[in-house]
């Protein structure tokens, strides 16, 4: 399943963001951040404890089922008074959740997490980036493996000189995607696909900010 992968912001940054905001309502999420252990029940409890130690007044806390869903507003309405009393919401969800809540409530929001990438859990406790939503998909020629996402440099014509024993020059724990693509195409008997010159990429898939409006059928 597609997942939003997050990590906790440094303590000092959260402290800085909460400066002069003494009453805090904490929101976690039951979906991706629960899986990545960055904003589920235990993390929200831990945050509450830490804020109390720092002298903050936690007016309340909750873990919404799916923060990026439009029903979040309804779910949060049960906490009306506690939220009203708070100077800010400290939101332990991905940026989708933070922005959804910001659109739904007239409250200052502070993200407690950084959103790293959209990916999936590939084995227990391991999360890998899968797609960067570049808008011009080329995986039909790379054996279904995306070099735009999984090559550190987004190279589309094969490996750079930094590839080392099938690993990336920036991190021995990261695969060189061009080794993976080579192996896959080799298995499929489609190496000619890798020999094909790929033109410079089209970076105009959908100019930022992305917006699509369905027209009537």
């Amino acid at each position: 399943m597609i997942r939003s992968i997050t990590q906790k912001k440094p303590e000092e940054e959260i402290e800085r963001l909460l400066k002069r905001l003494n009453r805090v309502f904490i929101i976690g999420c039951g979906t991706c951040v629960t899986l990545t252990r960055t904003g589920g029940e235990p993390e929200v409890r831990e945050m509450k404890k830490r804020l109390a130690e720092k002298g903050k007044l936690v007016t309340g806390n909750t873990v919404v089922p799916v923060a990026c869903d439009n029903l979040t507003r309804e779910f949060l309405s049960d906490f009306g008074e506690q939220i009203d009393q708070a100077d800010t919401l400290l939101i332990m969800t991905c940026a989708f959740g933070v922005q959804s809540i910001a659109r739904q409530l007239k409250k200052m929001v502070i993200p407690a997490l950084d959103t790293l990438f959209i990916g999936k859990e590939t084995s227990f406790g391991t999360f890998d980036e899968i797609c960067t939503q570049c808008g011009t998909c080329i995986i039909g020629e790379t054996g279904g493996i995306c070099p735009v996402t999984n090559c550190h440099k987004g190279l589309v014509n094969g490996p750079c000189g930094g590839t080392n024993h099938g690993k990336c020059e920036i991190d021995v724990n990261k695969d060189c995607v061009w080794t993976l693509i080579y192996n896959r195409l080799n298995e499929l008997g489609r190496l000619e696909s890798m020999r094909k010159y790929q033109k410079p990429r089209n970076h105009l898939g959908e100019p930022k900010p992305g917006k699509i409006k369905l027209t009537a059928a």
Partner: protein
Amino acid sequence: MILVTRVSIKRCIARGCLKNVPNENYNFVLLRFRDYQLNSKRDNHMPTPFKEALESLLKDKVDALNVTDHQSSVMRYPSLGGAMLVKDLGGEVILQMTCRDRNRLALQADLLFASSRGIQNVLCLTGDSVILGDHKEAKSVFDLDSSQLLKTVRTLENGKDLGGNDLDGGVSFCAGAIVTPEADPLEPQLIKFEKKIDAGAEFIQTQAVYDLDKFEEFMDYARQFNAKILAGIILLTSAPMARFMNKNIAGVFVPQELIDEIASAPKGQAIKKGIEITGRMIRRIHEEKMCDGVHIMAIGKEELVPDIMAAAGLL
């Protein structure tokens, strides 16, 4: 477009020195010049040590100098500027250009600029990752890759830019690329190598090679292509340096015998031994006509290049 040509070294003529050397003429000794930094705030003229180093190295010794482009992603004086300084001193230069820091507009503009200043050799590289350097939080570009940059050179030569617009005047470059003959796995690297040649690479500088028997195997394969191959030779300075490269530099393998040999040098003599080993390798490449030339990388010790050449019997 004004093409200024002030090439004076040896067989260099208008189209760039590398293109015009006949196959049998084994005389490529190239140098990678690194670590030149100009403090532009206080010192906007050419510093004396740089001038002296260049002059002593250029004078009838090497055919051309590589000027690196923020090598290892460490911010330095730009390769275009360094290349112009080499030209000013009457040297032949190979302008290294990476795709790390510039998008296709900037790369094309810099190629036009280089051409207008008489720079005729360009080495097209993808570039190291920004994370490996000293500005780790910088945005990396990689709008093009090395083969696309080579193709861009050829597109400009045909009077068009990548946007399809006609150029007013033309450019002409001798374009090169790199290959890692000992990459692991090797096959994907060779596919890329062939793509670079198809895209227009006329010369190839290799990653450092130490095992010349293995390099010969690579040359048996590479000879079928119409490109000059220059073997990369990094001066070994000590046994720890060799071990460091084996551990940390992708595609570089110093055989144990060479490590033992340099380790056996008496205290303070390792560098002398390194020069001897390097000279011996170059001599063998030369005598056996293994490839079209060598590219000496005396990282941080460029002043030793003439000694290496003497050890190789080339001076």
